[in-house]
């Protein structure tokens, strides 16, 4: 499968020259297989606007998989061009709450006064699905979901096309309440989603010393993301969901420490526009944005 990062920033779009390389758009990842008629989009942060403008004209179906409904993960949805294509099948999957279905939850944002267009008025062939917990099939892809540790109903995704495995946990705090992280696999949130994945895109919002003042906010430090990836036996980690306060210069310095540590785990901090080819025993970055 091919993976492209359209939004890597956490919490708030952070455009400007200081974030040009790592990117200022919020979470959005495109996943495609060998067919040009189907695309999977992981989260609908502000990065989804540019993705929508670049979709292949041969596309017949798009599946948008939302991890949760915090604003930085849905803020771009109303600006996603696919929703305005009359002949396109668009499926949006996301977690229900204990009392509301996904449609009702999303409708709170995609309706006046927060947004001028209602879900029911979108011209595409739109279907909304309360994402099941477990495994289901999309064209060319098996999808596995599980609830993960983050405030409110939040899922992580594991995508497998038979040749490679991608795990996506952009907002995840597996260290919450754990005295010595990481604990055993059995007691670690998200472990089974990430186990032995070829590529793991994982929350790494904070520097190590920042985490203590953000416990319970639902995010991880880079150090915790690395520990989690090593526990899960991941091959390639992409630290993601960079804090809005971290500019390019800061992130360069932060990840320089990890580049200097020799370890088996390959670490490539997420940059907007980066592409990855996920194939079985390897995943490699095929290009990075200029």
């Amino acid at each position: 499968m091919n993976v492209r990062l359209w939004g890597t920033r956490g919490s708030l779009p952070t455009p400007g020259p200081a974030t040009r390389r790592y990117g200022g758009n919020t979470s959005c990842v495109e996943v495609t297989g060998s067919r040009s008629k189907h695309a999977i989009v992981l989260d609908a942060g502000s990065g989804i606007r540019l993705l929508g403008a670049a979709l292949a004209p041969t596309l017949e179906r798009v599946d948008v998989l939302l991890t949760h409904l915090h604003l930085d993960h849905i803020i771009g949805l109303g600006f996603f061009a696919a929703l305005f294509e009359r002949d396109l099948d668009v499926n949006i999957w996301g977690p229900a709450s204990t009392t509301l279905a996904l449609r009702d939850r999303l409708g709170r944002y995609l309706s006046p006064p927060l947004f001028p267009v209602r879900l029911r008025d979108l011209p595409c062939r739109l279907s909304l699905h309360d994402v099941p917990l477990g495994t289901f099939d999309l064209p060319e892809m098996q999808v596995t979901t599980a609830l993960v540790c983050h405030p409110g109903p939040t899922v992580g995704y594991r995508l497998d096309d038979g040749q490679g495995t991608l795990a996506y946990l952009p907002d995840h705090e597996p260290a919450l309440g754990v005295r010595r992280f990481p604990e055993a696999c059995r007691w670690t949130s998200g472990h089974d989603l990430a186990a032995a994945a070829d590529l793991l895109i994982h929350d790494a919002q904070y520097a190590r010393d920042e985490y203590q003042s953000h416990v319970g906010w639902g995010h991880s430090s880079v150090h915790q993301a690395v520990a989690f990836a090593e526990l899960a036996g991941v091959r390639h980690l992409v630290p993601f969901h960079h804090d809005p306060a971290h500019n390019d210069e800061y992130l360069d310095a932060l990840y320089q420490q990890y580049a200097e540590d020799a370890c088996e785990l390959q670490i490539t901090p997420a940059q907007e526009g980066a592409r990855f080819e996920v194939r079985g025993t390897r995943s490699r970055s095929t290009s990075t944005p200029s």
Partner: protein
Amino acid sequence: MTTDQDDPGVQHQVEVILLKQVASYLAIPIFVVDPQGNLVYFNERAEGLLGRRYDETGEMPMSEWSTIFVPTHEDGTPIPADELPLAIALTQHEPAHATMWIRGLDNVQHHIAVTALPLVGQHDRELGAIAVFWEHPAR
């Protein structure tokens, strides 16, 4: 008995993981069982009642924990396994409460009240049950 190390491949549901984290910080004894009745966690305060550390016992099947602590009524008669509050919460999906005596693995008797509740997760998934213990003062 099994331990995390024996079966590392199956991760607990996140609600159970978070419950363990909360219980590990609380100063009241707490017991957590999975949908099959296996004891998957008890906290430090429960260790004092049960007379054994969690790290030593690991997870324990229902057939073992329901008898190993020798639960008895106030009059000393044994409490059948299926009448224990945790078993009721698990099998009848309703809260249950009882006062009883148990004997820890260190042979110390404890007079306790037990309240058990079914654990129901997102999507109404049955995740097992939780029991909270309260030790009555020695008399």
